[in-house]
């Protein structure tokens, strides 16, 4: 029998002190960094809920005395950009029309690319892959003017479909890399077994690979939705004002030089625009991390 009267001998789980130096340092640092990142968001939300008189007082960190949703209404439906005074609502619809087909098309093509590169080592596969990866490192700006000419020749310039095409092309390198690495990480014997079973290129892709690839598709969807939704440059270059995506509308509202700077409307408009990618992250955060780990860059 153990003698319980003396100081306790080591036995069972090692006792941990809650307020150890290590814990204070760890959680202190984490808290500080979290504040640093959350503060701008706080300022934005608070400002968007204030009236202009209150903003002019200059206390940007103080919570609103009188909460008003008028800036949000104005940002969505009334703010003027050029001739139109219907706020962001028009841009929202355009962004949806641009984003949905771009995401679907780019992922559909890139997943087949990645699958072919990972499992069907065709002649020239390495050259093709190298060129594709090289494409990921070329700055977009270099390709803007040639693309304008290409779209003009195709008759797609300033149409929404032209922009969809541009997004699909620019999504290709990174998405193909993502899918290729994921498919490479799946056991090769599975692919071999399916071949012995008589499945062909599409049969293996659709019946064997796709059902196993949900995590990586989630990652690709998130990457593409946020990337395309947040795009400003291509939106402003390859479309006309009637087709401007939300980001361009936002810029036009925020950067309008006429009249008073309505900070509350600007803040509200910015938050509304960012709401889509934010929602996507919050809803799928966990899936995203899991998928990223699965498609991590390997050989």
């Amino acid at each position, binding site marked *: 029998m153990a003698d319980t009267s003396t100081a306790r001998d080591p036995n069972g789980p090692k006792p941990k002190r809650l307020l150890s130096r290590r814990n204070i340092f760890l959680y202190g640092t984490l808290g500080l960094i979290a504040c640093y990142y959350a503060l701008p968001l706080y300022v934005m939300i608070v400002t968007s809920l204030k009236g202009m008189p209150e903003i002019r007082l200059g206390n940007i960190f103080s919570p609103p005395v009188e909460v008003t949703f008028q800036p949000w209404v104005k940002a969505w439906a009334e703010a003027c950009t050029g001739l139109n005074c219907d706020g962001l609502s028009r841009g929202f619809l355009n962004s949806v029309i641009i984003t949905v087909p771009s995401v679907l098309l780019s992922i559909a093509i890139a997943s087949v690319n990645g699958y072919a590169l990972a499992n069907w080592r065709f002649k020239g596969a390495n050259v093709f892959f190298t060129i594709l990866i090289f494409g990921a490192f070329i700055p977009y700006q270099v390709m803007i003017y040639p693309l304008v000419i290409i779209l003009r020749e195709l008759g797609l310039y300033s149409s929404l479909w032209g922009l969809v095409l541009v997004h699909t092309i620019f999504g290709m390198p990174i998405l193909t890399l993502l899918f290729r690495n994921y498919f490479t990480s799946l056991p090769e014997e599975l692919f*071999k077994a399916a071949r012995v079973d008589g499945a062909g290129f599409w049969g293996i892709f659709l019946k064997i690979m796709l059902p196993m690839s949900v995590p990586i598709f989630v990652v690709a969807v998130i990457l593409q939705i946020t990337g395309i939704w947040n795009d400003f440059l291509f939106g402003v270059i390859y479309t006309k004002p009637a087709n401007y995506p939300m980001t361009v509308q936002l810029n036009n509202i925020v950067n309008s030089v006429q009249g008073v700077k309505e900070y509350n409307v600007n803040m509200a408009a910015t938050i509304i625009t960012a709401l889509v990618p934010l929602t996507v992250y919050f809803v799928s955060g966990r899936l995203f991390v899991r998928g990223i780990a699965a498609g991590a860059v390997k050989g």
Partner: protein
Amino acid sequence: MASHMSADPSVSIRDLDLRFGSTEVLQGLNLDIGEGEFLVLLGSSGCGKSTLLNCIAGLLDVSAGEIHIRGRNVTWDEPKDRGIGMVFQSYALYPQMTVRGNLSFGLKQSKMASAEIDKRVARAADVLQIEPLLDRKPAQLSGGQRQRVAIGRALVRDVDVFLFDEPLSNLDAKLRASLRVEIKRLHQRLKNTMIYVTHDQVEAMTLADRIAIMKDGVIQQLGSPNEIYRSPINRYVAAFIGSSSMNFISGMLTADGFESDDIRLRMEGYAFDGVGQQNGAVELGVRPEHIVSGEAARSLPFNTEVVVDVVEPMGSDTQVWSSMGSTELRFRVDGQSELSPGDRIQVGIDPAQACLFEVTSEQRL
């Protein structure tokens, strides 16, 4: 194994070459596998045995040569058209499908009538006793069950040739032994041609009608387990086979017999069934289980007394490590004998049970 070597081989590999870039994996390989034969490709990793199997399956394109299955040249055929079924080390079951789905996938691909599919799945499930598992997903199965389903997937295809790629290597020792017997039983029942790749010499010895031992893409020896055990063609094969490996003693072969610093042995009763007697530098190979110990050793042409160094009891028998002069010597004694380090024991070697290898070519004399 004459019964297996009927006039037409089931699988015939002719002058097969396989290169990856400039690396030669298989070179000029020839192999005939008889109808209903169980052939084991044995070798350490990287010897080309799995590569050869993948070539037979059609999963790798060959660089040169031909593969014939049942008299048909299938060198350019797709895997599905070769009349083969394959079982993989990692089972390679389709994770999103049930066991039934896994078994029927290949049949559905070939657009078979569903009544026939059901019949075949039921038969395979019966043979392998996996009926209760048919509606489960692979993730819900144990390793042994998964491998049984993987075998079933080859079975439903109703093929002539089964290919096994290290099917038991992912299982624990006990399960491996029991599934090994099941595969043997399956072969006795189905009488299909089976080609089985493994690095485990116990699997090879127990399952095979013939073993092909491979090294560096070349078949070193092709023969029945007994032939390979009794008269290994070279030092590599001798060292590879045997669950505790052979003792090698360097010395000289003269007209009088084998001579080394510690041993002088007249090779009475030795067959010289390799390249024949060649006097010069040789190595004498003796399996631990062929070294006689105790009083019985005194009647043998060579015997001496050694000091026990380490004792490894294994239940049924005990392996003893000792040394003879500068050479380490392992031998087996009865599991009940109570030896301890430092004890002295008489050991003897019977030349009829030993092997002689020429030193440079490593060929058996």
